[in-house]
């Protein structure tokens, strides 16, 4: 009994030390990940245009950001592009995933390999090959960038929907059909709801990928079309303008809030059910 307590204390000491070390480790990782973003946020409030001198607090850059037509145009292009490409890729991706799932083992495996290739392929290869392809068929412009983005977005949708399809209970759909639902009704009322979480995460994944992309956009865009990433690239030569710090801060804060919302939302649901039960 006594010995047990002793060894418990010893363990407690070691695990305390381990705890401390792991906290330091996590602290360092978080610091390395977020310190640059913090610097960027601080710079967005800096009155001086320089990166190294602090000229006092200002909201000037936020004001200028919204009156800068170039940046606003690029932002709108980026968002429209991300939304459209994610939406279309989601529709195509979900249908493709259902189709691939219905295939026989061999074809299924072959198709999944084809799905993985665009993800593992270097962006620059995808970008240049798409550009070479487009040049023969259409003028480079918004349309070509959209098609390119849909192309690289589809695999992400398929990969996030596929596990949900495998988990899906097919008997439910069959039961719905037996009870008189037609195929369309059954698809929308029984199959889609079961896949919904996969579809949503696939959509957001595609949306983010499209917003993030520089290389493929750079090669497939036509003159006069610019997204945030290609615009910032053009700015490098003369130094990035503080308006971009402001915009990046807004994007970061928005994503942060969305993440918080997403993470705290589902936790409430079981609690509500619990209450209902009693």
């Amino acid at each position, binding site marked *: 009994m006594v010995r047990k307590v002793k060894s418990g204390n010893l363990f407690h000491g070691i695990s305390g030390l381990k705890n401390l070390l792991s906290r330091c480790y996590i602290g360092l990782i978080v610091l390395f990940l977020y310190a640059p973003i913090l610097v960027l946020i601080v710079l967005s409030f800096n009155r*001086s*245009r*320089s*990166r*190294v*001198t602090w000229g006092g607090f200002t909201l000037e850059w936020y004001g200028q950001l919204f009156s800068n*037509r*170039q940046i606003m145009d690029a932002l709108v292009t980026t968002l429209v592009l991300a939304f*459209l490409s994610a939406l*279309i890729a989601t*529709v*195509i991706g979900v*249908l493709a995933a*259902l*189709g691939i799932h219905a295939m026989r083992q061999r074809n299924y495996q072959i198709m999944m390999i084809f799905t993985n290739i665009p993800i593992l392929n270097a962006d620059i290869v995808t970008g240049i090959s798409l*550009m070479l392809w487009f*040049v023969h068929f*259409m*003028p*480079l*412009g*918004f*349309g*070509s960038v*959209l*098609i390119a983005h*849909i192309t690289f977005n589809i695999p992400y949708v398929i990969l996030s929907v596929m596990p949900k399809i495998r988990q899906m209970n097919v008997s439910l759909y069959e039961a719905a059909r037996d009870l008189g639902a*037609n*195929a*369309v009704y059954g*698809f929308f009322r029984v199959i889609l709801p079961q896949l919904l979480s996969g579809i949503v995460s696939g959509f957001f994944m595609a949306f983010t990928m499209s917003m993030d992309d520089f290389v493929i956009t750079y090669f497939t865009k*036509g*003159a*006069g079309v*610019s997204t945030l990433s*290609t*615009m910032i*690239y*053009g*700015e*490098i*030569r*003369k*130094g990035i*303008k503080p308006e971009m710090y402001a915009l990046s801060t807004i994007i970061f804060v928005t994503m942060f809030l969305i993440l918080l919302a997403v993470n705290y939302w589902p936790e409430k649901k079981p609690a509500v059910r619990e209450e209902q039960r009693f």
Partner: protein
Amino acid sequence: MKKKIVSVITMGVLILSVALSGAGCAKKKAENGSLTIFNYGEYMDPDVIRQFTEETGIEIKYEEALTPEEMYTKYKSGAISYDLLCTTDYMLQRLIQEDELQKIDIGNMEYIGNIGEKYWELAKAVDPENSYTVPYFWGTMGILYDTTKTNGPVDSWEVLFNGDYAGEIVMQNSMRDTYMLALKYLGYSLNSNDEGEMREAQELLIRQKPDVQAYLVDEARDEVVAGNAAMAVVYSGEAYLGNQYNENLAYVIPKEGSNVWLDGWVITKSCDNIEAAQQFLDFLCREDIAMKNFEYIYYSTPNEAVINALSEEDRQNEALVPSDHATDNCEVSMQLSPEANDLMNELWKEFKAD
């Protein structure tokens, strides 16, 4: 049944995507045609483009690049057919040599007289007959220094080599710029193809190395602005900005001479609307437009109408309006002979590895 529905939906999606992409690339037909312009990033006031379209009805598709090499590659790939390019001296020279350009009818341009004689002379280094290039902006390389940290005059490359400011010097991390200033300090041409002269420059740079705090590119200016270094070798445009952040900074073009660069506009061979292209170039030379661009970019302008309209203080600023005697010994950098280029690469590698 299920198959049928899936195929119907697939068809719908395909039609939708084709329709959307069609709408996306449907061109707004401009009444007077359109121009595709390729320029460096942040190198023209966006208002200027808007104003040109308003005044002439010519639509402009505007594209930006970071380096001359990138422009060259994108232009040569032919994916987008550009009408007008703005690029830097040695790339202008290369495009002219490769017969990629069309002659500009300079005599017929209304505002071309605003470009000073001095700048046409500069442009002759790459375009000997002044028939392909309209000068846009230009600048020099020199020393940006903190007047509170230097004693005695800074007017020569010597301050970098005499050890007075050991540990306080920031050099450019770029091969051509580094050898340029060493060659100039030794009294040679910066376009020297001579092995002996290059080796002499190499020796000088190796001896200087312990005194150098860092070899940087874009951050060179910031180091002096922040007070981490007493002086840095920078381009004049950077120097002007540095001066805006920290008023103790000054810029000098060393008396031994330095590198002067020039950016100019050219009309490509693929341009089929030459009249509109010339109209645009003329527009850029107009005083109010050149002034807008100057106030957006703050590099030295070759437009004398703009220079005359500047404040006395700006006209005295060596980083904005270099005086004639300061640029007397300056040279435009040209392509080196292939052997000299290889040798310089070799020396630079040795120098950096050392």
